[in-house]
């Protein structure tokens, strides 16, 4: 039974608290035999507590599969990109290098690439993926478009991404601020201690994600601006 097509995976790193419940829960999935298929990254712990859970984005045209010399990575009919197939995978790590989202990992002890398959054994029987079920901040959310619109009016789901000249569409959505954001995340305590902090911020807008396919970005979307 395929994953119901009205249910989607939404990631909001803004909500992530770095607790690793997702990673720990992933190891508990019946078929994972104690391994996690996902990981959690601190962006730069020296500078921030910002973390991001890295689950597979399930690309429509998966770069990992395209670069695989052994044709070991398959995409199911309902759009789930699977772990490398056992007899085929040669653990070369091409997919690790190529994936623009940094998802796949080679398990050296078993000489195979394994990654998130959207909890296929759970989603295909109507359950939510383990990570999205337990995530205490719901940085990982699994549900319908309507639910996410109702629950998160200040955010908008995005599933087209631009990496240089490559445009990637994914099954999994990233939550972006619905309006251009002027909220400054607190990074260094000393700024909050100051009477007159520098009024600078990163203006994130979802517009850049909508840039037409194949057009390289000519402005840095992460540039700091004066407020």
């Amino acid at each position, binding site marked *: 039974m395929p994953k119901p097509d009205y249910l989607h995976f939404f990631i909001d790193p*803004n*909500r*992530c*608290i*770095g*607790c*690793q*419940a997702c*990673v*720990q*829960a992933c*190891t*508990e999935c*019946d*078929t994972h*035999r*104690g391994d996690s298929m996902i990981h959690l990254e601190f962006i730069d*712990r*020296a*500078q*921030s*507590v*910002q*973390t991001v859970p890295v689950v597979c984005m399930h690309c429509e045209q998966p770069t990992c599969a395209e670069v695989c010399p052994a044709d070991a990575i398959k995409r199911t009919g309902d759009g789930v990109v699977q772990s490398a197939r056992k007899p085929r995978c040669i653990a070369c790590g091409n997919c690790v290098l190529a994936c623009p989202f940094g998802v796949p990992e080679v398990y050296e002890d078993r000489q195979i690439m394994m990654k998130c398959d959207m909890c296929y054994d759970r989603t295909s029987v109507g359950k*939510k993926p*383990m990570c999205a*079920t*337990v*995530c*205490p*901040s*719901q940085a990982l959310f699994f549900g319908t478009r309507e639910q996410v619109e109702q*629950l*998160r*009016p*200040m*955010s908008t789901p995005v599933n087209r991404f631009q990496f240089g000249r490559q445009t990637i569409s994914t099954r999994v959505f990233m939550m972006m601020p619905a309006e251009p954001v002027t*909220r400054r*995340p*607190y*990074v*260094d*305590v*000393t700024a*909050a*201690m*100051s*009477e007159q902090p520098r009024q600078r911020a990163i203006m994130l807008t979802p517009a850049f994600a909508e840039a037409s396919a194949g057009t390289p970005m000519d402005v840095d979307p992460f540039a700091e601006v004066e407020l």
Partner: protein
Amino acid sequence: MATIPVDELKVIERFGPHRSSVTGLRLSTSAEPDRLVKTHCCFCGQQCGVQLKVRDNEVIGFEPWEEFPFNRGMLCPKGVKRYLQGAHADRLTTAIRRDPSSPHGFSPMSYDDAIAQTASAVARIQGTYGNSAMAVLSGASLTTEKTYLMGKFARVCLRTPYIDYNGRLCMVSAGAANKKAFGIDRTTNPWSDMVGTEVIWVAGSNVAECSPITTNYLWQAREQGAKIIVQDPRITPVARTCDLYLPVKPGRDAALFAGVLQLMIEHDWLDRAFIDALTVGFDDVAAYCSQWTAQRTAEITGVPERSIRQAAEWWGTAQTSFLFHARGIEHHSNGVQNALGTINLVLATGRIGKPKSGYGTITGQANGQGGREHGQKCDQLPGWRDISDPAHRRHIAAIWGIDEKAMPGPGVDAYELFRKIDAGEIKGLLSICFNPKVSLPDNTFITRALEKLEFYVAIDFFLNDTARHADLVLPGSLQEEDEGTVTQVEGRVIKINKAVDPPGDARQDWRIIQDIARALDRPHGFTFASPREIFDELRRASKGGIADYSGITYEKIAQQMGVFWPCPSEDPETGRPVEHAGTPRLFERGSYNPVAKGTGPFYFADGKARFNVAEYRPAVDDVSDEFPLFLTTGRVVSQFLSGTQTRRIGPLVDRYPEPLIEMHPRLADKLNIRDRDWTIVETRRGMITLRAMVVTTIRPDTIFIPYHWPGEKSANRLTVAAQDPISKIPQYKVCGCRVRKATGAPAYAAVLEPQQ
């Protein structure tokens, strides 16, 4: 004899902590569970619902319980991996006794002999020195049934006034403040009221790490438009994206609240009608606050004036709001005043007792709420009654079937109890669910006191760090090996269900306590056959008290997925039997309670809430020329309290293996310390050497160390045993320290595993 019998490393070698991992049945993809048991996590006060997978009397995994309304399947990593504490190599499956001739310091013995020896030692101590020479230390991770039994055991069986519990390190500042302001001690609203409110003020709570499930409520509230204010010396994960971050200096919270209230008074951002009709004492508070100009508040607290003004404006002009606090403002020798400061901010706006407007204190332990209500506190009797109140004593003595005059009076707090051990007044100790050698401040003193005990018996499922001093250790039960109730953060009474039987000679704690009573030939009142029987007596004992559980049954809990107390069996107004559904929200206008009797919503005779002057006092052992930096302590998400359980769960240890000293790069540069360098922290009590973690997310005048580790890694070697004069909570959150780079690794680094 209460010295550690052999070299501590030898004890650790046999009894751990060792790390468990996912192996055997738990790894098997084909092992279907026999059944799923709906229960709750054993760790923090959120008490997330979870289903345990059980096969062959072993918990082999978990399945989310998405129907339970509080967490709807969500769990933190501790909840996910909690089951790995079962079937653990370190588990005590027999009684053990101190034995210096054994290579690991302890020898197994029969359970019956251990009970008999416990009873004869207790009888000898009490016969020689009097009943008060025995003391009991209990805990708030126990079910309410057990906490009730422990209080009764101390008063009725041991006839000692000396019982206290580890909630003394946790909830007492909040409890004392609530009692003074509202006359009742409970969070006022269900957490669901947070979503849809305009402003949420998080005062001294690292929500993301200490009560992770609350994070989703916060983020959900923000998506619906709430502004979030976070007050903390560190940029915690919820502070990172909050709307206003107040980087308060440790120990200055009461000043901040007074400064904000002063601005609200100046701008008349007050609910005058509410203040006049439903409170007393505002004028005294206003008079006190008048000295706290924004400028002075900024100077004292380290929070810039612009942010104090912004906080006052947002808080003052909102229509709905939620304020909650936790140990960050409570773990102070000024802890009650700090909590009262927050309550003044709430009362001044009248935003309480209504949907979307509330106040709450985040409980720490599993039963941080229920564990403080039914008589294991040194001054308390069940139903949140007062052991010094003659009417309360008579009521409980009648339930217990004893002469009121035979009931001891109030005892002393847990720390004072150790001072009495040190002074030789207390000679014998029974402890359960408490690991003071890790968790109490200035724990070098705690070790010294433990060594003076003539007799020490511990009940535990693992040999915890303190129990290494014991003469006898009785093998107790894990949370999943017993049933009973706990009361979680919202005041919701929920049911812990038994999943497996205790292994070997281990047994349920309430059975052990009753076995001791029987062996002492004092079985009266200790013949319960089940937790349900204990709960039924607790219901009767609490009846008519403020924490009235009389209308709660196990069946009602299952049916409603929890029951908010107070839940009386008889209508307090008419006295007629009533099928009460519980009280999710306190202080609603027009509500009736047994103290006010209809005069108003608060639990005082006039029905009015109390403003209390919440005075700022500098911390004891504050920063000085000699010790110029603030030391503050707290938790990390993958560890829990003294780590007796979580330092034995491999995946949790791996996430944050050893304590680190968080410091700002400005401070690190000055001290020539780089990230992960071995670093010495010293206070007036002692010094420890740990690795540094250099991050911009902490005030440059402050360092932070998590406290879950023992011995030479223990932050509580450094902390000061100063206590709040009212609540007796220790001042864990601030003391002066100095820091320097170490010349090399400490000796322990070569011999101890990270979790040891």
